[in-house]
């Protein structure tokens, strides 16, 4: 059984939290310190972002972290080198998230192999088109045991959600709204009915809600309406302070417990 399935099997409460952070920010070599700190503090799974110069789905916080990470020298080569120690220090599921051009230059097959070697569970590549994944890359991902996670937005039609579900493994990344990252989510009736519409489709994959989740309240609502919720910008903002490693436990506690 893969790590994510195990997580959901073992944890039956509605309090599953995933954290995103950009590798190489604020310092080049702290990727695993942050990941380990997050696991110890109670984060349930992780997205580690690999930076791109033109992150067009991201708001200012993640844009900034990406820019600093690049200045610090973060690349996929460097990241995979760092992740060689991943499974010695971190046992929760880990997904890599970033834009297609960086994966394409690294080589899609090589990327999947590197993920498998270091024990990364899957990838989230927002600008990789479904048709291209299906035609060219699905077999490569599958044969390496790397899951590929697609995004769903409020404007995605039911038919397309089903298609996405059929191509996804592990989970579907449900965007809380059509927005770039880092906006503050207000849970409204309209939003809840969108979450319910997707749930009513009875998909094969877990549904994880992300984008705009920043505090205990909207975390509870999102995680309650789906299988889990992801926090990105609100956590990356924590990394701006010098004692960011010490702050992780309090941050996770404040999200989970309020």
């Amino acid at each position, binding site marked *: 059984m893969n790590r994510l399935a195990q997580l959901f099997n073992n944890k039956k409460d509605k309090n599953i939290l995933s954290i995103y952070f950009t590798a190489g920010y604020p310092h080049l070599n702290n990727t695993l310190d942050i990941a380990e700190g997050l696991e110890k503090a109670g984060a349930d799974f992780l997205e580690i972002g690999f930076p791109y110069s033109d992150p067009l789905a991201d708001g200012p916080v993640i844009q900034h972290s990406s820019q600093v990470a690049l200045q610090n020298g973060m690349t996929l080569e460097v990241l995979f080198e760092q992740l060689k120690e991943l499974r010695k220090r971190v046992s929760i599921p880990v997904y890599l998230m970033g834009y297609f051009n960086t994966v394409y230059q690294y080589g899609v097959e090589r990327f999947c192999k590197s993920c498998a070697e270091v024990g990364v569970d899957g990838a989230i590549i927002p600008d990789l*088109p479904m048709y291209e994944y299906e035609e060219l890359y699905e077999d490569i991902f599958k044969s390496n045991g790397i899951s590929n996670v697609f995004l769903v*937005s*409020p404007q995605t039609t039911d038919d397309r959600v089903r298609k996405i579900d059929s191509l996804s493994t592990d989970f579907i990344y449900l965007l809380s709204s059509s927005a770039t990252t880092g906006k503050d989510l207000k849970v409204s009736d309209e939003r809840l009915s969108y979450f319910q519409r997707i749930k009513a489709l009875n998909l094969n994959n877990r549904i994880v809600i992300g984008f705009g989740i920043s505090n205990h309240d909207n975390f509870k609502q999102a995680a309650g309406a789906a299988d889990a919720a992801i926090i990105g910008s609100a956590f990356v903002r924590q990394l701006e302070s010098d004692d960011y490693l010490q702050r992780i436990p309090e941050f996770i506690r404040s999200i989970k417990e309020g």
Partner: protein
Amino acid sequence: MSKYQVNEKGYYGKFGGAYIPEMLYPNVEELRQEYLKIMNDPDFQAEFDQLMRDYVGRPSPLYLAERLSERYGANVYLKREDLNHTGAHKINNTIGQILLAQRLGKKRIIAETGAGQHGVATATVCALKGLECVVYMGAIDIKRQAPNVARMKMMGATVVAAESGSKTLKDATNEALRDWINNPVDTHYIIGSVVGPHPYPDMVARFQSIISSEAKQQLLDKKGKLPDYVMACVGGGSNAIGMFYHFLEDESVQLIAAEAAGKGIRSGHSAATSVLGKEGVLHGSRTILMQTPDGQVIEPYSISAGLDYPGIGPQHAFLHENKRVKYVSITDDEAMQAGLLLTRLEGIIPAIESAHALAQLEKMKFEKDDDIILCLSGRGDKDLDNYMNYFSF
């Protein structure tokens, strides 16, 4: 379907496609399903033709530049896109897209701009049709193209400075795409060149193809023959595609596209994508772009804001690969000298972008009877400061 045009999957050979996050998919898909239907609708065509004639001032003249011709020992015809309303070819595309946006029921228009010409052309059609308009422009470009910023504001557009990255055209494009992600329902994004996810490159090419459909007929009327050379400058590549479009199948016609070499190809300050670029994905399409081995986009440089872009449209990447079009690089200095030369020989101040195409004339050997059509994509009013500083007038 022509071997040089987009296929039903949205690709030119291996270039093109739609590499976009899911949030953009519904809008881009709607456009993909509707654009040809709308463009082929007689109602649409009648309104487009009428605006092109009465508002833009088309057909634009094909002008035999005699003193320039004398200098190069061949017949140099200038396709006068600089005489269009708002001063460049960009209006051909914005008129088309605003009519399309109206038919899609959109209420709000966004655009990116480099030199400001596309921003002005977008603000203009929004004023014409009474739609809200937001233009993203790199903070650096806002400084170097001040007159165009003023024109946009006067027409009621909101100009938003793009402060991310290199603060030029690519970053303005990122910001416009982010705006579209955040406003997924009633907004249409008028992209200003033959870039972006399918169907944009094809749609913009079709609107700009009016340049070559006119020019081809104009030369036939004058000379009864096809040109020997057709030339244009390339930023994203819309005036060049428009200028080449109806000549692509005429294999006897040599097509030449001038890119901005900036301070020189090896200087580290250049925008010569066809030389410095590598295959990858930029702004939603697979194309050639300037990037590091790790896939990070390299910040380009050109004295000309309209050519200061790290990629070229996917159709250009294809035409480069199959060698139908020859891509050449022109430095800042060569372009500035060519701009001054045209001004002194013909009394026409060209946009610095267009001056890149003019500069290529200096480097070529022509036969006496050669007919050359060169796309004078825009006028130089917006660049006066730049010219004045450069030549210390």
